[in-house]
């Protein structure tokens, strides 16, 4: 049994002459919270599109959730969850309708959707607002609902795109606790962000600069390596 959720080697993506992602290699263990960082335009989004099966690598190889990123990219999509802060739920559908919609998209049976709905509503204490429009929920509730829905099909990996940038410090902490909980159950969490303070919550962090991974380690070791007090300083030293 493979103990890695993500394993890629020399993954490269070119657009014409431009190399957006340049020979990146890394492994992410099962149940790890992995931070994927980089400046604007460093290639994070392109790399993530390859990992989530949305874009075919120009060269290189690897597996995500046990599936080959080149041959089986359609299968990858069935074993991963995705959530971004910007868009995750349909605001003009109710809480329950959102759960049903995403359950349906991921191919759950009606029976499974009913069961999952009850579990999610119960765990997040949302039963009383289950027929309210998502638009009416406070941001913190929306986020945790979106996170729960991104795991409705029990994926091996959840990709989180800037999950807590700019949100209330208290809400952000509640959200990280939910992330810790999911990781504690063996789910791999892949966080892309350019908010450096989000990186401090991750087990390990990689930093991309101009298409390459220039650093990869625990936040503590990176701070030591770059003689920096915060991840912000690590980043600045690396990029400058």
């Amino acid at each position, binding site marked *: 049994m493979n103990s890695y959720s993500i394993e890629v080697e020399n993954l490269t993506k070119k657009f014409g002459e431009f190399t957006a992602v340049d020979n990146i290699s890394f492994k992410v263990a099962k149940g790890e919270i992995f931070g994927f960082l980089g400046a604007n335009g460093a290639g994070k989004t392109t790399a993530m599109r390859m990992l989530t099966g949305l874009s075919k690598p120009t060269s290189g190889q690897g597996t995500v959730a046990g599936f080959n990123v080149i041959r089986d990219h359609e299968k990858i999509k069935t074993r991963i969850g995705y959530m971004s802060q910007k868009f995750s739920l349909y605001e003009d559908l109710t809480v329950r309708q959102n759960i049903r919609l995403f359950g349906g998209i991921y191919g759950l049976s009606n029976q499974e959707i009913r069961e999952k709905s009850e579990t999610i509503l119960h765990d997040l204490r949302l039963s009383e607002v289950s027929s309210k429009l998502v638009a009416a929920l406070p941001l913190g509730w929306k986020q945790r609902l979106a996170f729960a829905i991104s795991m409705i099909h029990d994926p091996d990996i959840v990709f989180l795109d800037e999950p807590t940038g700019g949100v209330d410090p208290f809400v952000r902490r509640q959200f990280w606790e939910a992330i810790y909980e999911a990781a504690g159950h063996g789910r791999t969490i892949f966080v892309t962000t*350019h908010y450096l303070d989000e990186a401090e919550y991750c087990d390990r962090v990689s930093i991309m600069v101009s298409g390459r991974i220039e650093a990869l380690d625990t936040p*503590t070791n990176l701070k030591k390596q770059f003689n920096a007090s915060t991840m912000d300083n690590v980043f600045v030293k690396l990029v400058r």
Partner: protein
Amino acid sequence: MPAIEVNNTSRTYGKVQALNSISLSVEYGELFGLIGPDGAGKSTLFRILTTLLLADTGTASVAGHDVVQSYRQIRKEVGYMPGRFSLYQDLTVEENLRFFATIFNTTIEENYNLIKDIYEQIEPFKKRPAGKLSGGMKQKLALSCALIHKPKVLFLDEPTTGVDAVSRQEFWDMLKNLKEKGIAILVSTPYMDEASLCDRIALIQSGKILQTDTPEEIVKSYPSPLYAIRSNNNYELLKVLRDKNYTKSALPFGEYLHLATHTSMGVDEIISTLNTGNYPDLEIKPIKPDIEDLFLELSREV
């Protein structure tokens, strides 16, 4: 007379109270930070002060002019960088700058010394459409355009949101230079770590100002002993700590947990309450609070 003065200003949108009796004042040459999360009311205050929105109650003046009576005068004397990028995407860098100079009845050349340090960094790309710039470069262009008419007061609504750490640091260096030229700057940010770069800050949440002071004084007002704790299983440790009688609050803080206790305790005293066999790499140290600790403490009381 202060550059910005706000007295008991409130504003609602339907049932939502966006601003709840806000008061503050900002001096010329002062860099004043409005620190709070999304939805706190920061942008509403900016829109009132830049005369784009009327308050329901309260008074406010900018550069000595009342925001209702003398709104036309204010518009000539302030620079405003809204939260959303709002330059003309299909005009080039240079065309945008010239456009803003022209509508304020001036020229790029007349006030070039004010923007020189900033504009020089994007000048190599002056023929590029603004929509094709990177986040950091867009932000520098927007700042140049907000400064080209030599404003007395500068309003920057979340200028560093969505911008990478390097550009953020450069941006704050630029603000420091501008304030030394006597410009009053009101800047908002959701990044707590940027608060320490301001002369004074107001912490704002749900339309209310929680506290206003220098960053140093704000942090001093934190009421409890505070410890940073780390182990190989922070999440489990967090739950354990929350059940202890001595715990006032326990919250994740990146690699560490921050534990606030009701009374001062020795590190060994805390360790003695934990089953250390479960945490081989346990690390505990007393720490000084930062702005985010205080924000969390204050927002618990709201």
